[in-house]
């Protein structure tokens, strides 16, 4: 039904990270916010994207910010790291969505809302690890992977979903021995993202062995719950995102109370 070759074809179409973006990420990795801003200034598309993002109502700024240095200093290292990685999704985002009722702007909204709530959670948990902060930006790649892989046989998969309680992640795993999160990690490989980021993304699928031990297990639980908190919003339910992968309430049961305090209330 789906063959590994289709995944390989999709991965082959993913372009490498443009040089400017790579330089910007290197500067951010070494903690040089000014150096990163200087690189961004010379990339018209990136600087325009940053201006567009920071002036969105969700950031609640009273006056419009246009200067790239000011954007970097306002957002800070953690947020900028996330936003630059989220910008990388533009390299793979579909022009026309066929499988989900999505659009580029709705996808960006999801990215920003995830980042905002993630930062709130990490602050409450007193987590300052750069990789944990940035990892949330890669999570929505799972939606793009699902869109690209399943769109060619949409009607077949819809019939399967209407007759059997089996999510797209499981379908892909059983057909190709790779799930959506494995494919996200192959994208991360292609973009030289760290092993730690990949580990967090894999764990956040919620489909893990009960004996799994990892220092990222708790943050992965928060990430899993946050994803479904966001996908429970009306606009994402309308886009058919609520059930594209399985939510595992048991996986997050021990952190739910704290999550509620920080995010829901």
């Amino acid at each position, binding site marked *: 039904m789906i063959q590994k070759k289709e995944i390989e074809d999709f991965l082959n179409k993913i372009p490498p990270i443009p040089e400017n973006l790579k330089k910007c990420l290197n500067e951010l990795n070494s903690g040089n916010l000014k150096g990163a801003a200087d690189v961004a200034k010379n990339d018209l598309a990136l600087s325009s994207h940053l201006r567009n993002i920071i002036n969105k109502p969700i950031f609640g700024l009273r006056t419009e910010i246009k200067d790239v240095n000011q954007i970097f200093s306002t957002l800070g290292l953690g947020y900028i790291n996330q936003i630059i990685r989220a910008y990388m999704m533009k390299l793979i985002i579909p022009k026309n969505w066929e499988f989900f009722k999505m659009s580029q702007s709705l996808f960006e909204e999801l990215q920003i809302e995830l980042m905002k709530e993630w930062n709130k959670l990490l602050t409450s948990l007193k987590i300052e690890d750069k990789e944990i902060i940035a990892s949330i930006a890669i999570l929505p790649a799972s939606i793009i992977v699902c869109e690209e892989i399943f769109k060619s046989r949409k009607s077949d998969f819809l019939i399967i979903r209407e007759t059997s309680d089996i999510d797209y992640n499981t379908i892909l795993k059983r057909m190709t021995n790779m799930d959506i999160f494995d494919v996200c990690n192959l994208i991360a490989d292609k973009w030289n993202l760290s092993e730690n980021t990949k580990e967090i993304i894999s764990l956040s699928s919620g489909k893990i062995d009960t004996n799994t031990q990892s220092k990222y297990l708790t943050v992965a639980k928060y990430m899993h719950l946050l994803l479904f908190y966001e996908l*429970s919003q009306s606009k994402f339910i309308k886009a058919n995102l609520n059930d594209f992968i399985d939510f595992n309430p048991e996986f997050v049961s021990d952190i739910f109370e704290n999550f509620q305090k920080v995010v829901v209330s």
Partner: protein
Amino acid sequence: MRPIVKGSIATFYPQGFIDSQNAPNLMPIPDIQYIMTLDVDVVLMSLKKVIFFNKNGFEFLCDVLNRFKKEKGCIVGFCDYENNIYHSILAMFPKGVSVNLFKTREIASLFGGLPEYSRDDNILVYNDDDEQKNIALVELHNRGFNPINALNKSDYLEKKERKDIYKAVVDLTFLGHFSQKIAKHVKGNMIVYSLSGYLDGDVIQKFDFKYHHNCLNIGYKVYIFEITRVKSINVNAINFFTRLAISSAEYDAVLCFVGVNEKTFADKFKDDLEDAGYMFFDTMSSLHGNKGLMEEAKKSAVALNQKRRHSITRDLVEKLSLFIDVVAESIELMTESKAVKKSAGIANFKVEAEHTKMLASSIGFYGELDGMFILVFPINIAKKTTKLFIGEEVEDEHQLLDAMAEFVNIMGGKAKKALLDSNVHVSITLPRTFTNIDDVFAVVEHKKGAQVDLSFDDEPFYFFLTR
């Protein structure tokens, strides 16, 4: 959000959080309209993957579910929850929940639709609330099951462990405003309708005419109205029963009341019903003692057998290529192999390959076109086609058969959609699986059908379409 439809039960599986903001989008108008077009008896909302819901969101979903109850006469409710959630819901609505709460989808199937248990199975029933327990016992009895009352909590805890005796346990289940349709079941080639309470003109809304006519068409001769728990019957209900007797007369059907006492009917009403052709019995055992009636019931069996011998029709043969396309394409997709047609013809069912290496499955459809198709798979093909549902290829036969049933259900769904595209409306039954090919022959004995022999990767595969 589209529901998952299995047999005559449609289940929604929302995930994450439910509140008043997002609840309307879990069941938007197009999905409500879609449910209205489905031939389902039960609509459920699963809470299996929900971590949080509030009262407003829950109430909204209750309202939508109640629309299905009102407009389609469906049994509606929530399912798949833990003990604490069940009690939270009851606490949230101290005056009573407006829909049913079923611990699982399988438990819901006991109260509506095609049950996932045999009528002979013992069903253990327990509830802290005696009134609820009694409602469940009566409903299960009305549907022809054998409910066993757990007398108290310790009795329940002890008995529920005896899985060899009690095939299902009805607990953590709340039946709120339950009886919409009059319960019915088949017993000893007779159709039994179980009625209760006060019968008035509303009986017309509660009676399943489609089911009754289907039974008449199939050839059932004896229809029993079990009225032991009926408090009184008014003139409007009497008129309904009289008209029903007239419309059933052309099928030579015999209609009876069982459990009649002096309080249920005024003598005049009883005379009217006797004139319409009804027979009256005090108890079921006195009915069984009536030789003439039992002979009529036997006629049902003969008529049913004759119907079962009906062979394929021209309408069905015209759709043969549609069914073959659905089946071949589905297996090609799952096995990544190519279908090769070996032979085709109208004949009695025949399997040339060694029977012990084969498994079979069947699924029926009814509506504007009636029939069934049978698929006979080599075990290897069955394993490949079911990999999607069980992951690794498995050796366990039960798992394999369950997964095959899932796969055949999908093919049934695809065939239904393809028929709908050519303006033929059908509903599909639950799939059936067979480990012994001889059992398939027993089903299609004396029936002619369209058989197409295919092969996938040089392995034989048999398709048989019949009525």
